[in-house]
């Protein structure tokens, strides 16, 4: 951060706000040193932190299969993917730090349940097909959510998202490719794939958030340019994209109301169970406690390692170790 210049009087807030609004109106980026309204900064920190937490907690459901992956190629691919997610978390925590947040503090907030992460990661991964379905549907939904964020009004976040989206599309492809391979395998494998699709479809649709009429912050976030489409728009886009992919794969989605509407050119789909959504977001999902406990243990059980690194750096100031 640069020191404020003392000669000139600070321009008053109204002028700053005017400049901020003009930047947004011109579709230019806000950068870390620019003035920004407190509400914008706070909302962004929450958004970016929640996204970072989701990347890190999101390592766990698939990570649970790393040791048991059924071929060395699959094990390598999965390890590379889970490792990517750690990298995504790192870029995003860095973006949050440009807004004045601190990574360790954000991790504390996650572990103490003061900040949320995507509720999709509170479901268990019951078979290896879940690895494929997470790649195809969950990473796919994440891409739909995230591609518009490559145009976020906040520069560091937008740049992190461009990098992340490229990697997410790899993730989606490897998931789909695994499912394709499994569908060409045994009857048992095909049944595993359909079962996984049945379990993940509705939770995936909930990844886009509550319906627009119950999404109170959407309007402000869109005005600030940190959200580019409404939840329902993105959800529809995802459904339209996924149905043909399911057909190619040879699986069905567990929704009797799913049907193409020639008038709108979109697929109609059934009602989502928002009560379940609230339960899972509120910490009552099947895996919430386990996910957070593991994250907490990684922090607490290894605190001595970080302390040692800090102590060593202090002793050997200037040394590159």
């Amino acid at each position, binding site marked *: 951060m640069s020191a404020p210049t003392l000669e000139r009087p600070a321009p008053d807030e109204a002028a700053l706000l005017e400049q901020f609004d003009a930047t947004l109106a011109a579709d230019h980026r806000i950068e870390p040193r620019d003035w920004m309204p407190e509400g914008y900064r706070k909302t962004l920190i929450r958004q970016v932190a929640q996204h970072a937490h989701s990347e890190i907690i999101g*390592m766990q459901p698939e*990570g649970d299969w*790393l*040791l*048991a*992956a*059924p*071929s*060395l*190629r*699959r094990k*390598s*691919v999965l*390890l*590379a993917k*889970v*490792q990517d997610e*750690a990298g995504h*978390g*790192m870029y995003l*925590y860095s973006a949050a730090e440009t807004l004045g947040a601190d990574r360790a503090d954000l991790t504390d907030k996650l572990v103490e349940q003061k900040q949320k992460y995507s509720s999709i990661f509170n479901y268990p991964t019951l078979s*290896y097909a879940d690895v494929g379905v997470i790649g195809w549907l969950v990473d*796919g939904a994440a*891409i*739909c959510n995230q*591609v518009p964020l*490559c145009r976020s009004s906040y520069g560091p976040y937008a740049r992190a998202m*461009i990098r992340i989206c*490229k990697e997410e*599309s*790899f*993730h989606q*492809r*490897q998931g*789909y*490719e*695994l499912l394709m*391979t*499994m569908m060409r*395998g*045994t009857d*048992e494998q095909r049944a595993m794939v359909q079962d996984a699709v049945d379990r993940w479809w509705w939770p995936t649709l909930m990844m886009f958030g509550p319906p627009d009429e119950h999404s109170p912050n959407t309007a402000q976030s869109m005005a600030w340019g940190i959200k580019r489409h409404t939840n329902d728009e993105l959800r529809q*886009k995802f459904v339209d*994209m996924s149905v*043909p*992919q399911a057909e*190619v794969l040879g699986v069905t989605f567990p929704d009797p109301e799913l049907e193409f509407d020639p008038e709108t050119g979109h697929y109609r789909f059934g009602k989502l169970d928002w009560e379940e959504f609230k339960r899972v977001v509120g910490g009552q999902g099947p895996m919430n406690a386990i996910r957070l406990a593991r994250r907490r243990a*990684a922090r607490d*059980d*290894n605190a*001595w*390692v*970080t*302390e*040692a*690194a800090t102590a*060593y*750096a202090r*002793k050997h100031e200037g040394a590159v*170790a």
Partner: protein
Amino acid sequence: MHEETVYEALSNAHDDEGHWAFGTGFDEPLAGVDTTVPDGIDPADLGAYCLMLGDDALVLAQRLTQWITNAPELEEEVAIGNIGLDLLGQARLLLARAGSVGVLGRSRDLATDSIPDEDALAYFRDADEFRSTALVEAPNGDFARTMLRLLAAATVRLAVFARLRDSRDPVLAAIAAKGVKELTYHRDHAARWVLRLGDGTEESHRRAQDGVAAVWPLLADLFTATDVETRLAAAGVAVDPAGVRDEVRDVLTQVLQRATLSVPEWPAETGPRGRLGEHGPELTELLDTLQGLARQHPAATW
């Protein structure tokens, strides 16, 4: 990146063709490589030797992977992921090389034809057919012990691979040349942590010293050649492990001293154990997890 084209690319990406996610890096390890065995080399010996080196890499990769989602820092998740991926890559090449010279044992009968050799060997051999050593098989313990074990394992392996670059088997030589770069990074990474932990806080010093005490005895069976290694070393194919002992001891002593750790006495040599198929229960346990799913669906393709 234009939004609409990204969506479109996704929808069209699924023509079931080779738009493979991570490039071709993870496909068949020896694809396109001439696997002919040069004159004067016994294929059975060569295959057995590849199993020794391949099993060490596979087992250590599995151990390191146990840290994923449990590591002290996100940077360390990424680093351990990198090291694990390197070792998996080495394991795949070496197991594929063993398969290419026909060393498959019972595994080939248990695995379906469509399962590649590397997986037949990794997933369908029992513990007594593994040729890994106790150094890589031992449980992780805490982060200090994990890094001390990685330091020792990478130091030994780097010393061997550096010499194997001149192996008379060109496939082995190529695998070693690639591995040397990777193992240099693994060794450095572990050494940096040993320095930080040894010379960090009182607690980390104590844990590092405990790690040394746990890891040093695991060096006992590493430096006596099996008959296979002796024959192959004489033929210019393999490395006699006795020839790397001093180098390994020097490197480890240097790192420990710089880390303000005391260097224990070098363990009395026991002769080969793991290389002959003698393992403790921890390998069986590790293999149960690694192999369980693949064995549950022997007719499946993944």
